[in-house]
């Protein structure tokens, strides 16, 4: 008996590491949402260990996909079959669960994006430009400043009777505006509701500018847990907004689906297996002195052996992840002419 084939999706974001296990029908068997706490490698390893423990009997990992801003890092550790950007991963996951969705609103820890789906493909997208105002980490910080646990933040907003207006363009302005409103004696609920409205306004005017937001609208990413923001979106768009059951790990699910598609073509997985994850992983950086760019080169080592390396502009240091034998080949760089 060969057992059940399972697929693992890993999303290493700025704030959380998400890991999911799905089967061939893309049913979700296991999901983990772990805060990065500034130590992505350790959290990822702990998460993978947890997944290993939870692995059903007679099953094997038949494919692994990574996504998120730390997708290369995750790939270096597990040797993935697919390393995909977040847009494609999120689009893939939504199209599976909600095939008639036409708009995805996604707000994560440090970036926010809008993805337009038409006829089953991603037809347009936008990401926040240079400012992280109105993303999860900003809400985190404001919740902390108001002394409200982030989990209760949204519920408080719903209790507001007269929301105050908060400047939403910039996180720094929003914060000083909030302080000012507090000093005026506005209630905490009203300020929080004002903040939710400001964030949504900023998102729609910035990320969503000029985009045709058509139903059905799906809202996902960690911030979708915040009912205050969901409500604010529904008010601003005057339409219902769907928060999928697994809104917080949709990127990881998408990566898992993409891994299944890839391995069903290639036939086999590159995944290094849970046993080889037991080792000691470490990241090391150094500055390349080859030219005045002084690129920061990152190396991932497992038990002292080089696993992957990236970071140079010219590509001369790049070493692809996934070769356990140690016969790492240096990628073809093209140093400037």
């Amino acid at each position, binding site marked *: 008996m060969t057992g059940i084939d399972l697929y693992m999706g890993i999303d290493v974001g700025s704030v959380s590491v998400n890991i999911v296990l799905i089967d061939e029908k893309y049913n979700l068997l296991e999901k983990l949402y772990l805060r990065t706490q500034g130590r992505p490698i350790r959290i990822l390893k702990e998460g993978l260990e947890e997944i290993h423990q939870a692995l059903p009997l007679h099953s094997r990992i038949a494919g692994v996909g990574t996504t998120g801003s730390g997708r290369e890092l995750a790939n270096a550790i597990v040797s993935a079959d697919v390393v995909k950007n977040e847009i494609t991963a999120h689009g893939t996951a939504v199209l599976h669960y909600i095939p008639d969705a036409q708009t995805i609103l996604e707000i994560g820890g440090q970036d926010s994006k809008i993805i337009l789906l038409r006829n089953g493909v991603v037809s347009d997208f936008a990401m926040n430009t240079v400012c992280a105002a109105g993303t999860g980490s900003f809400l985190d910080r404001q919740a902390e400043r108001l002394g409200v646990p982030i989990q209760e933040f949204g519920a408080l907003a719903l209790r507001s009777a007269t929301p105050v207006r908060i400047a939403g363009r910039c996180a720094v302005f929003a914060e000083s505006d909030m302080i000012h409103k507090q000093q005026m004696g506005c209630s905490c609920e009203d300020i929080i509701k004002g903040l939710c409205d400001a964030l949504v306004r900023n998102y729609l005017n910035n990320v969503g500018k*000029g985009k045709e937001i058509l139903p059905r609208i799906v809202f996902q990413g960690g911030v979708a847990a915040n009912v205050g923001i969901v409500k604010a979106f529904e008010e601003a768009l005057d339409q219902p907004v769907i928060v999928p059951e697994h809104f917080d790990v949709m990127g990881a699910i998408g990566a898992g689906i993409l891994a299944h598609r890839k391995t069903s073509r290639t036939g086999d997985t590159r995944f290094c297996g849970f046993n080889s994850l037991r080792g000691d992983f470490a990241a090391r950086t150094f500055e390349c002195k080859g030219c*005045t760019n002084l690129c920061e080169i990152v190396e991932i080592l497992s038990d002292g052996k080089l696993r992957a390396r990236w970071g140079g502009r010219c590509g001369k240091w790049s070493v692809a992840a996934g070769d356990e034998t140690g016969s790492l080949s240096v990628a073809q760089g093209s140093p400037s002419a």
Partner: protein
Amino acid sequence: MKIGIPRALLWSIYLPLWKAFFNELGHEVVLSPPTNKKILNDGVTACVDDACLPVKIMHGHVIDLMDRADLIFIPRLISICPREYICPKFIGLPEMIRNSVAGGPKLLVLDFNAHKSIRHGYDGFIAIGRQLGARESAVRRALARAMKAQDEYTARLLGGSNPLMLLEGMALHAGIGGNKGTIGLIGHPYLLYDRFVSMDACRKLAQMGYRLIFPENILPEQIERTCSIYPKKLFWSYGKHLLGSGLAMLEKGMADGIIVLSSFGCGIDSFMVELLQRQNQRDFRIPLTVITLDEHSGNAGFDTRLEAFVDMLEWRDHNGHYFSPHGEGLYIC
């Protein structure tokens, strides 16, 4: 004399003219190296904070040239086309540099003002030629030869080449990684053709298998024609150039997708991007994305956007036959 030309701002468009002019007059030309981290850091430190990134980088190039050249050539481009202007930051450039760069760099300032007529624009060359001690007849002869070199260069650009290939010897031919289609790149020359600022976007896209088309490849008449849909004259030369070439790419179906590179805080881009997006939304609906560039040195965010865009092109391509709003295979090439 050694005349330093900073590899910044519009150097990639006018280098053949400038270089030939000085060479014809018997001077040596030294170029600053392509933008690197040190040049960026020097520029950002020296320049006033509210300038845009390309202007800050210009400062860095001037600093680099200071002990290698006797004079540093700074063009004050006021107008490059009759009845049009270019960005006001170009007009104040020599003053900005004099006031911000410590150590008093010796500048050779060219005033180029073609607002009345193109012929008037070249008067500035006569003035700096004289300033360099040459007789007027010699200066005129040098200018004529330089203009010929520039015409040849412009013709090659219009013929489908680009400054990265012609000036930096980069191989950007289609098909490094297959031939998946054509991407139009819209942006100021100092973003598109600066490999540091653009995070090497051109090479990355070429390696992903795309042919690239640039605003410099679009004929001026075509730009004039596409911009004539607007009720008012577009009097910012570069705004018109970028918008017009983007519209031409859309109208003629030259590109499967368009990527606009914009530097943070650019006033001209703010309207150009908006008009181009609206027109695309209204009539063409091909994938179009805007990537804002600033001082970030981390590539991750940039690469994510680039990758996602290319994924989107490929994804749409597979489904093109039932997706095109025009009823014909707009995305199938």
